[in-house]
């Protein structure tokens, strides 16, 4: 029986993953190869982070040998953004990546990398599957040493003269990130999408008032609630927000919350290509940001 309505046990899949330092990265490859038949693992290795990720690389190499999975390592430089963008394009453009045979493990993949994959997959007119494993626990902070926020190539929207800027942030546990985005873009309006639910101490760690306090005196703030784990509902809520704001604002959207919110954002971007997608490149991450892996993955098809 197929492990999910989106996957088939008759297909040998290319699994595309980013080498991370979290346990989830290695465990994700292991679990996925137990759920479906993986013939090839395309592993993106950001050279900038090798000091953190090399131990997982060794484990993944051993796993691939043991499971007879062909391993293709693609080395990228996170700081050389334009090169990384082209390399992601090349991965998708490779003839081996065909309609329905490739699956992205988005669990530890940077949001901008997910968006870039979706872009090139759509360009080639193929559908990418995705698999997402939640961790068991999150650490107390995610990242430090951020660089300037950036708009994603080809997703910088269509800004109109005469409109003010609205920034939609799907918030996460890190209040500093909210503050950084607001300081950088100086939007007239900031709309904070607050994640619902009690998972991972969400209600203690993602507090609406605290995010609002970060914006105090810099921008007008409004809120909406969202559940990023329900992709369809999240897209619908975002779509409503964007429709409401679009006549008056140039909109920039950022995902700082659950990884899956990046997929909903892309879904909405396809309906509203006028919006810009932004992300914050970061140099340092918390090595113990997450621990463990949830045994029940979320599987789906990326927006096509």
């Amino acid at each position, binding site marked *: 029986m197929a492990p999910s309505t989106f996957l088939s046990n008759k297909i040998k899949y290319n699994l595309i993953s980013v080498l991370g330092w979290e346990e989830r990265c290695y465990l994700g490859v292991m679990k996925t190869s137990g759920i479906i038949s993986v013939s090839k693992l395309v592993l993106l290795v950001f050279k900038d982070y090798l000091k953190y990720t090399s131990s997982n690389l060794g484990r993944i190499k051993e796993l691939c040998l043991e499971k007879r999975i062909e391993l293709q390592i693609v080395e990228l430089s996170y700081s050389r953004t334009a090169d990384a963008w082209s390399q992601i394009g090349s991965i998708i453009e490779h003839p081996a990546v065909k309609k329905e045979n490739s699956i992205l493990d988005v669990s530890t993949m940077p949001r901008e990398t997910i968006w870039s994959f979706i872009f090139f997959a759509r360009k080639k007119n193929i559908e990418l599957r995705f698999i997402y494993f939640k961790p068991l626990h999150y650490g107390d902070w995610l990242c430090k040493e951020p660089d300037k926020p950036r708009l994603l190539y080809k997703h910088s929207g*269509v800004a109109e*003269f005469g409109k003010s800027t609205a920034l939609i942030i799907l918030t996460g546990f890190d209040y500093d990130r909210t503050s*950084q985005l607001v300081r950088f873009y100086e939007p007239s309006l900031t709309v904070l999408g607050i994640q619902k639910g009690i998972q991972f101490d969400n209600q203690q760690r993602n507090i609406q008032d605290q995010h609002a306090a970060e914006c105090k005196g810099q921008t007008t703030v409004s809120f909406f609630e969202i559940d990023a784990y329900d992709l369809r509902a999240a897209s619908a809520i975002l779509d409503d927000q964007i429709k409401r704001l679009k006549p008056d604002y140039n909109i920039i959207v950022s995902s700082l919350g659950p990884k899956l919110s990046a997929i909903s954002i892309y879904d909405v971007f396809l309906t509203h290509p006028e919006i810009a997608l932004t992300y914050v490149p970061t140099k340092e991450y918390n090595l113990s940001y997450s621990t463990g892996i949830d045994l029940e993955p979320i599987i789906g098809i990326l927006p096509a």
Partner: protein
Amino acid sequence: MRNPFEFEAASNLSDEEILDFYIEDHNFSRFILSSRNIFLSGERGTGKTMTLLYNSFRIEYRKAKNLGIPFTFEKIGIHIPCKTPLIYKKEFELIADFRAFLIGEHYLSLYILHELASNLQSADETETAFENSNETLKTEFEYITSSKLHPSHSFLKSIELFVKKEVIDTQRKVNDQNSDEFYYNTYSFNSLVLPVLRMIKSVKLFSKSHFLFMLDDAHDLNSYQIQTVNSWIAYRDHSDFSFKVAITSDREYSFTTASGGSIIEGHDFTKVERENPYRSSGSDFGKMARDIIGRRLKLYLGIDENPESFFPINPEMEEDLATAKNITLAKAKLKFPKGTPKQINDYVYKYARAEYFRSRSGKANLPPYSGFDTIVQLSTGVIRNLLTPCYEMFDMAMSESGDNKKIDHIPWHIQSKAIEKVSKRKWESINSLHRNVEGCSELQKEYIYNLFNNLAILLRQRLYSDISEPRAIKFKISDASRDAMRRLDSIINIAQKAQLLYVRLGRDKDNGENTLYYELNRLLLPDRGLDPVGQHSTISIRASALWNAASKDKKIPFDKLEVKQNGTINIPFE
């Protein structure tokens, strides 16, 4: 009740609010409204945007209307904020340099033309002025650009629509997933803005107009656009237009041009610093601060009193300060039995406040910081720093008295509490620099803390020592050519970005050379029990001593014997 001290970004204020809030500084207005190219530099919160907006055509015109006087149309300031999604686009990184230049200039030229056309239309006189020229100018424009303008609108309106459409078409093309092609139909300042400017000047109402293109936050432009703007600035003929470019600092903006040359201060442009050196309540900034607070009290609370009454000083502190002054006066008379009044006054000026701080018991809490003058001194000459403690005080006063009770003054105990809170928060902000200041590493964050902590220790040692200038809080860096300065530079840059440190250019008293003066954000001082009221004096510290303080957490050497008679103290490298 709205907190009257809310700091709202100028770009989010309505025209009326700008007119209500802005306290005109004629020194700046004179520069902004001149026909010279001007660079206006100042960190965030120093009022650059407000200054540009206040002198922009939109506001100047409204000001004239409100006063019932005719607007002359001689100086027309077009405000062009660069913090927009259009400017933040990065697709230029995917194409070759030459094309990146073209697309960057194309966006900027369309943007400038849009702001020009839409702003001019806001004047009542414009429609009539163009009545007989609309069709001729439209034909001329269509001929030059080989484009079609909207047939049923005026010249300016159809130009506005044209650039709106052009910018949308360009972005769609650039972002098209199936197109790696370049957008070939690009415009430049020369091919688009200048011809339109000449057409506008052919209309009698604007024939004598000088256009001021006010590029706000120009450090946010990409490197190609910065070089393009500099090339425009290098353009010699400034009879019809000039640029007013607001930037945070030279560190964030390069002065090179597209052709590889550079523009030079004094020759191509004049530089104006928006951060005022703050010396006393009688200084330009001191007067402006009084006006800013006074106007907000009147607008929001209907209070027509002076700010000193709204922010009264703690009577005990006032009394203790008076006692310290008397003690110092007595000491001065002993020291200079035949002293001139100037000698006596100078001595009291130098030592009276130090005497107050020294006379406080070692076990006493922090001094009860309060009073409007203290608040102004804490601002370090930056408007945002002026409003921050006031906002906190008002918030606390509201919580204490209940939301609906009228607040007619801020009790001194609340002032002290708010100042302590704001100061503590400022120190705490250093802990998260590596999480929210771009380019700051964790190590640099630690260095900044060490540096500031050691500077605070030095200031405290000086305040409590019997030296010539105990309250000096500004410093300059000697031996700046050393390797230590190069390493120090990156952390100074981050501290500046985080507004923990202010750097100002001034003339050195000793040798007349231009020198950089550094000053901690004075909001940091109360948490360490220091005096925010500085004095006319500078401490000279070696770059190597500062670097050791930052990187090795070594105390900055302080040797009382090194004190010179002129008040400058040389702290030797160990």
